[in-house]
């Protein structure tokens, strides 16, 4: 390959400045899979997915019904992380909590993307009045801190996993719309869009067939990073008691429940909180890895 290049116009430039020709996939593999932190994140996420999928036979005890005789047991061989006031095994509840985390995270991101991306796409593509209406509305939603908007909405809807998902999705939509809006504006200026329009392609075809696919990589990166933020927000809502309703197993409410027994049984609060932190960290690391692996501007640098 490099031999061919020397005869072309590129021969004029310094050879060391020419990025080596690497296929996109092998670059992805190299950047993504060869970083320890990214691999750590990926491993954590796999464990969480595994726990969520096989919770019913991984969990040693029933997460919802405890043994009152074994109330507030310290961590021991029988109960690895101890039990809460109702005698429920902390470890089992944490394993079932994986389901809550994944469900809230993935459904919310998907719903928010399905609503937010077309809004941003239309606002950026058509401009004018639709741009103004959509982006003004998004600005209004952005006026609230993310957690506060989620709080307001879940307060209005009442708790429960379904309403938490709805509340968080609505709170997340403006973020997607904004980023998609910006991406659309820059992609729209490309010559291939002009060519497409000149061939008489409809707006819909141009938007969904050409603008959207070119914006997909950054949107995936955004979604991964937002999974982490979402999990923190859901945990916060559950901690306040506005999120997942008892007896549902959510890590955030487990931390809150353990507060009363902080001095005698600190593990009750510490363990679920640590789990939240590690999972959020994993999502952020995988997000960073994806960003570097998918960003075409870093081609040749990484």
């Amino acid at each position, binding site marked *: 390959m490099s031999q061919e290049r020397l005869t072309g116009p590129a021969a004029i430039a310094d050879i060391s400045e020419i990025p080596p020709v690497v296929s996109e996939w092998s670059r992805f593999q190299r950047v993504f899979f060869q970083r320890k*932190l990214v691999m750590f994140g990926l491993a954590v996420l796999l464990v969480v997915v595994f726990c969520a999928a096989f919770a019913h036979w991984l969990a040693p005890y029933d997460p919802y019904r405890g043994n009152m005789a074994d109330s507030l047991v310290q961590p021991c061989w029988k109960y690895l992380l101890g039990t809460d006031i109702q005698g429920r095994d902390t470890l089992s509840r944490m394993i079932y909590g994986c389901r809550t985390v994944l469900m809230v995270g993935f459904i919310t991101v998907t719903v928010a993307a399905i609503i937010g991306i077309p809004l941003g796409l239309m606002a950026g593509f058509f401009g004018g009045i639709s741009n103004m209406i959509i982006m*003004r*509305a998004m*600005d*209004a*939603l952005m*006026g*609230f*801190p*993310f*957690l*506060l908007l989620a*709080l*307001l*909405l879940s*307060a*209005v*809807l*009442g708790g429960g996993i379904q309403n938490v998902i709805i509340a968080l999705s609505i709170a997340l939509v403006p973020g997607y719309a904004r980023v998609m809006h910006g991406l659309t504006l820059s992609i729209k200026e490309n010559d291939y869009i002009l060519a497409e329009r000149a061939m008489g392609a409809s707006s819909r075809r141009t938007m969904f067939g050409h603008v959207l696919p070119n914006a997909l990589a950054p949107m995936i990166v955004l979604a991964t990073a937002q999974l*982490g933020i979402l999990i*923190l927000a859901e*945990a*916060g809502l559950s*901690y*306040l*008691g*506005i999120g997942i309703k008892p007896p549902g197993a959510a890590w*955030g409410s487990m*931390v*809150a429940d*353990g*507060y009363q027994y*902080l*001095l005698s049984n*600190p593990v009750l*609060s*510490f363990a679920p*909180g*640590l789990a*939240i*932190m*590690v999972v*959020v*960290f994993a999502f*952020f*690391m995988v997000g960073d890895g994806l960003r570097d692996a998918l960003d075409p501007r870093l081609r040749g640098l990484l």
Partner: protein
Amino acid sequence: MAVVTLWLVTLVVFFAMRLLPGDPLIIFMGESVQSGNMTTEQLAKLRVEYGLDKPLVVQYLTWIAGLVHGNLGTSIHYHEDVGKLMAERFPITLHLGLLAFLIEATLGVLLGLVAAVRRGTWVDVAATTFANIGVCVPVFWLGLLLTYFFGLRLGLLPIAGYTSPFDDFWMSTKQIIMPVVCLAIGSMSFTARQMRSSMLEVVRQDYIRTAWSKGLRERTIILRHALKPSLIPVITVLGISAAMVLGGSVLVETVFAIPGVGRLLVSSIFAQDYVVIQSGTFVIATIIILLNLIVDISYGWIDPRIRYS
């Protein structure tokens, strides 16, 4: 433009509140009716008193008219003026938030700066690791950890409450240390990450190479030439962190039982006190919009290439 956004915010808040299943009064008053303290006639009278018998548009316009005159409505739960409730609690949240923000901004920028300048060394690794972990820590959990170790085990700091610094400065400071740390750590890490990457971007520029080749000292180059341009993207992040601090205060005030605005909102949610939620969220949204306006203006100040017409 900020006014239009503000108006849209009132729409969002008002109609979100009216999505409440059923009558906002019923849920709160329902208990009193059941316990026999109040008859259905009295309930109807109350409904008229709070204007809930009128059509939605009229209710909305009444609320807006009140806001314009600085009247935020009367709380159902506290039977007090919401403006007064907020005015009592706002200085507390401001004290907490402002301290957290100042610490967050200063340390975040410093941490990012040092990490970028000493790129690849152990300083960078330590700072980056700290920042990467800091953004993931659940605020309320960190609060619990600190309470456990510094409050309960070591007995160094009081675990809850708030004292005005004008009444007892030493006690106030002791009480506010843990909340401020909790509130600052997330956004500080966020700021540090942004500062590091924008600083690395700037030191690659030609004018920095020129500065080096002129033989300037490193300190001069970093502080006089590289700092200002690298702060531009950080200012956006600082705007977001200010919002994060305000949002986080809801959690932190709950953990440490601090009677601030965030605590008021949470307890109003449980008390179904829609008047307080409605006006409270409106006030907070207004603050955020103003902050964003300040951020936009400071762009022009720090980067003369940006000018608004």
